């Protein structure tokens, strides 16, 4: 048993899993409603957009970069798709394709600036974030698009059932899209050569370049992938709320970043797993859901996020230091 605990706590993912299980038990004891199927499904659905974004951010983090502009990218993609859907009345497929392409293009623009100007990614994406978002607000005048076409705003229920207690459980489209995003990201990072090369570049860009990794292509892959995910998240977000509000997603960048980092993706690159990111999101989702169920003021949530980030990063930082000390103490 102690062996298992030691093995679990050695990795961030294991530690997170322990915390999540503990939190789950506590919440179940505190509120009988927590461990019901409908609540858990709601929890997953409400964090689907965050999950899609965090997966994209995770890929950039593993590649050794950072991107702040994704929320602005998502807003631009969402608004443009909503505009052509309402003003021009285009059917579903071209609109969705446009949203995804806009996301991809803006991500690739980030990659081009980062790669060819050789400026650190946080600076470039702060600049492009300002540019993307400010231009969107300027062009649209901050006006929302409320009358989304039916194909977009209608809830798509893929599967539903009624539990014994009479609650309706529905698996909806956002959950499916998030699940697909998880699958694709997992395949990309663990089952493809490109994923290995991204990880190698994040670990040591110079070494990766000398091994023959095409750094330019990797930059375009990482930031382009995040752009695509941002476009997708923008479309799903509009689907969930039934309108396109230009500044709805803006300002949420740091929380998404926190979710990815919480799951063990390192800001210095080369480290992180899809499972870890999912656990990070699950922890945040459970905390918010749990605080809601316990009737804690929603104003309190931000404090909890701050504490969770501080505690989790402290634990990872201290355990990494302890591991280094162990290695020094016991020469192999």
């Amino acid at each position, binding site marked *: 048993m102690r062996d298992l605990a030691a093995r679990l706590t050695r990795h961030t993912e294991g530690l997170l899993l322990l915390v999540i299980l503990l939190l789950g038990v506590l919440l179940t004891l505190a509120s009988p409603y927590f461990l019901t199927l409908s609540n858990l499904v709601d929890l997953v659905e409400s964090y689907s957009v965050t999950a899609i974004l965090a997966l994209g951010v995770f890929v950039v983090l593993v590649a050794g970069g950072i991107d702040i502009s994704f929320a602005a990218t998502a807003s631009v993609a969402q608004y443009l798709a909503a505009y052509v859907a309402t003003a021009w009345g285009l059917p579903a497929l071209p609109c969705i394709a446009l949203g995804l392409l806009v996301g991809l293009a803006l991500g690739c623009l980030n990659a081009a600036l980062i790669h060819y100007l050789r400026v650190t990614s946080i600076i470039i994406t702060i600049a492009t974030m300002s540019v993307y978002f400010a*231009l969107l607000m300027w062009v649209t005048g901050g006006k929302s698009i409320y009358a989304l076409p039916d194909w977009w705003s209608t809830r798509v229920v893929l599967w539903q059932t009624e539990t014994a207690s009479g609650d309706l459980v529905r698996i909806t489209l956002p959950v499916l899209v998030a699940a697909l995003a998880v699958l694709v990201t997992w395949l990309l990072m663990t089952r493809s050569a490109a994923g290995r090369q991204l990880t190698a570049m994040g670990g040591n860009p110079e070494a990766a370049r000398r091994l023959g990794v095409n750094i330019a292509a990797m930059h375009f892959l990482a930031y382009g992938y995040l752009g695509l995910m941002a476009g997708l998240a923008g479309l799903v977000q509009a689907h969930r709320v039934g309108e396109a509000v230009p500044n709805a997603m803006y300002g949420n960048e740091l929380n998404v970043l926190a979710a990815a980092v919480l799951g063990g993706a390192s800001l210095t690159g080369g480290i992180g797993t899809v499972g870890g990111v999912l656990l990070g999101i699950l922890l945040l989702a459970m905390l918010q859901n749990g605080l809601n169920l316990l009737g804690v003021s929603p104003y309190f949530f*931000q404090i909890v996020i*701050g504490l969770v980030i501080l505690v989790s990063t402290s634990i990872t930082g201290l355990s990494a230091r302890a591991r280094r000390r162990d290695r020094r103490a016991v020469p192999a």
Partner: protein
Amino acid sequence: MSTPVLAAEPGLMARLTRGGMPGNAAGLMGLLIALVLLFSALLPGRFATYGTLQSMMFQLPELGLLALAMVIPLISGGLNLAIIATTNQCALLMAWIMSTWLPAGAGGPETVLVVGAALLAGLILCTAIGLLTGFLVATMGVHPILVTLGTKSLIDGISIWLTRGTVVSGLPESFQWLGNGVLWGVPVPFLVLILAAVAVGLVLTRTGFGISVYMLGSNLEATRYSGVDTRRVLIGIYTLSSILCFVAACLMLARFNSASAGYAQSYLLVTILAAVMGGVDPFGGFGRISGLMLALVVLQVISSGCNLLGLSQHLTLAIWGLTLIAVMGVKFLVAPWLAERLARRPA
């Protein structure tokens, strides 16, 4: 963070493309002159006036002080994402003390006492936040982005929780002089900014602590092995950054006559933008206060000019972002040319 280690030969080339580039200040100065000429031509008789200059001197200090609070951690190779949160919480505390403790129609001595108490409380709060942040950065071995992301959420959360997102207002008129007064024809907030900038500049270049900040930014391990107590320096860096937030909080409170957890949130990333435009290396180790101030003036001229032209606030932000990208692009194009010139010069 991606490191631009891809340049074929390091050494001179790398040094020039990093922050310590000699042409940086000259380039910014040229850009500033070009902008002033452009706006003067576009707005004859309206841009190049004393009124415009004065209004710019009123608007610049808030961003300027926040940028100073950001630049010290940046030079040390870190980042303080909590500056806005710290500033707002400090302003809220001071506003709360002044609006609740000061009875209506209070006399002079009483006002001085309460304002003094509020300032002292704000300073203590900021110092405490800075010490705590510095301690966490120094002992946890985690990147400051993460630590300050956590402290930012925590501080913002506490402010929002306590105020429920409302605005606290009602300050004594004498305090508002700090934000709206004019001394010898120069706005008081601008004088405060100049004082703070000179002080920070002196600390960074003329004290042992300042030299350690630059060394830390270049190489933390090497600095530690050369006998510098890096933990103490780190704690000093984040404390100084927080104390500058206190000064910014005083100015903002005096100018807006109110405080809220939501003020100035959009400035957070703009301060990084200004610092990098001013030649501060985002990886740390290089950067001057004079460069930062020049970049701030460029941003303010763009903002005031666009405002007079009747362009939207949003467009100004977009132009700021584009300017930074353009500055980066020019640096990238000019640096190899400059390196070639220097290499050709006989030794």
